[in-house]
């Protein structure tokens, strides 16, 4: 049994050069892909009325999302969404979106 485990761990280590996401898929990235359904693929606007998110300045997005959450900033659907995320999750999402190319 011990030997078999070693082989598998070696396989996982060797797999690194062949894969595109060396550390796996982060919670923030997978959560962010669900935002694309309304805000556009990879956060890019495709002509609709809903704003793009790719390359959004991180600090501005954190502030705006927190203001949606508190109701300080009015919204139609965003308050209903963002109430489902902790402040830490909001910060992780904003960091991820800031890394996407606009």
């Amino acid at each position: 049994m011990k030997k078999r485990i070693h082989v598998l761990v070696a396989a996982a280590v060797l797999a690194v050069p062949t894969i595109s996401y060396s550390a796996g898929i982060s919670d923030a990235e997978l959560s962010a892909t669900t935002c694309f359904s309304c805000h556009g693929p990879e956060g890019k606007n495709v002509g609709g009325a809903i704003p793009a998110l790719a390359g959004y300045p991180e600090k501005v997005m954190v502030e705006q999302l927190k203001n949606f959450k508190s109701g300080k900033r009015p919204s139609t659907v965003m308050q209903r969404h963002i109430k489902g995320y902790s402040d830490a999750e909001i910060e992780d999402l904003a960091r991820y979106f800031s890394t996407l190319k606009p």
Partner: protein
Amino acid sequence: MKMNRRTLIKAMAAAGATVPMISPLSARAMSSNDSSGPKVVVIGGGFGGATCAKYLKRFDKQIEVTLVEPKKTYMTCPGSNWYLAGLVDSDTITHSYSVLADKHDVNVIHQSVNAIDAQAKTVKLDNGDVLKYDRLVVSPGIDFKYEMIEGYSEEVIDQIPHAYQAGPQTEILYEQIRDMKPGGTFVIAPPPNPFRCPPGPYERVSMVASYFKKYNPTAKILVLDAKNKFSKMGLFVEGWKQEYGDMITWIGAMDGGTVKKVDVATKTVYSDYDTVQADVLNIIPPQKAGKLAFTAGLTDDSGWCPVNQETFESSIHRGIHVIGDASIAGKMPKSGHSASSQGKMCAAAIVSHFHNWAMPRPKNVNTCYSLVAEDYGISVAAVYEMKDGKIDMVPGAGGVSPSAGSVQQHKQEADYARGWYKSITADIWNS
């Protein structure tokens, strides 16, 4: 790859599951010169399947992804009510698979599936070809329990359309609405729960009413419902009264609204409420998982497919994932948006499995916009997370648009509804 404790345990568990051999996937991953990755076959090119195919490639380009979908183009159910109203043309809501094939290197095969062999891990197509898979994703959509309504069957859907799988059925209803005599009666019978797109029948009522308001203002709409309440009910009823006066009458199950029988030749519907002769009749029958889910043995007694709600792997057949309307996905509604979200979760689960990565723990969402009138939108939204092995709603989040909204709010949500459509279809088929 960082080998933290969680991933190491998962890797060990995976090794245990594949005793006595190392799985071929790990063996393949060991050879960095071998460009061919594990094989995933996705059956069904709708919101669930097409999303999953694209996102498998997004998360790992090495995976060989094959998408099997008989139709060359796909007309979406979302937006099909807007088409009935004349607000969009059919090209706007019809999408091809060329971007998935050409840009994302998905092997798109336009064939029907003849059989799935879960033991041999193969899919046999109608043309006789056999596809081998390491993981299979099935996104078969819905089928109808025609037998629940006496006199109704698949043989008569050209006369009495359900129009609840977009395409030729949508075109038939489109023509019938336009051919209806002045002052005629449109009768629609929404199904009992659970069913595809909970607000769908009521957006349809709204959109047919908006057409009648312009072109057949003395027409009447009768909704004979098998339920006592429905999605965004308060908002729809408020909007119907404001926009269409007394054109629409809704009869719930408690008042005998459930349709029990139809006479096809005369378009007569029988319910405890009344016997009514319709000029245009739209029956949306009770629903179950799509045919392939049954032939592949993926359904339980409920007629839907039980799955691990984190990975969407079937609870019945290991190695086969079921997403979209056919799956039992906890609190998520059966919607195009849900199906697309599930396609992403499932793709992430499969890629994480191949690499022995920890499965991410994302938040997941659904947003359903409906048009009450061209510039009158309403919405329902929810955020989801895994809780005790099931998809649950995050407390305190989600809900419907406020009632008694302003003209401006309604216009904004109508614009967002159209924006949502552009974005989600671009995300799935067109970018």
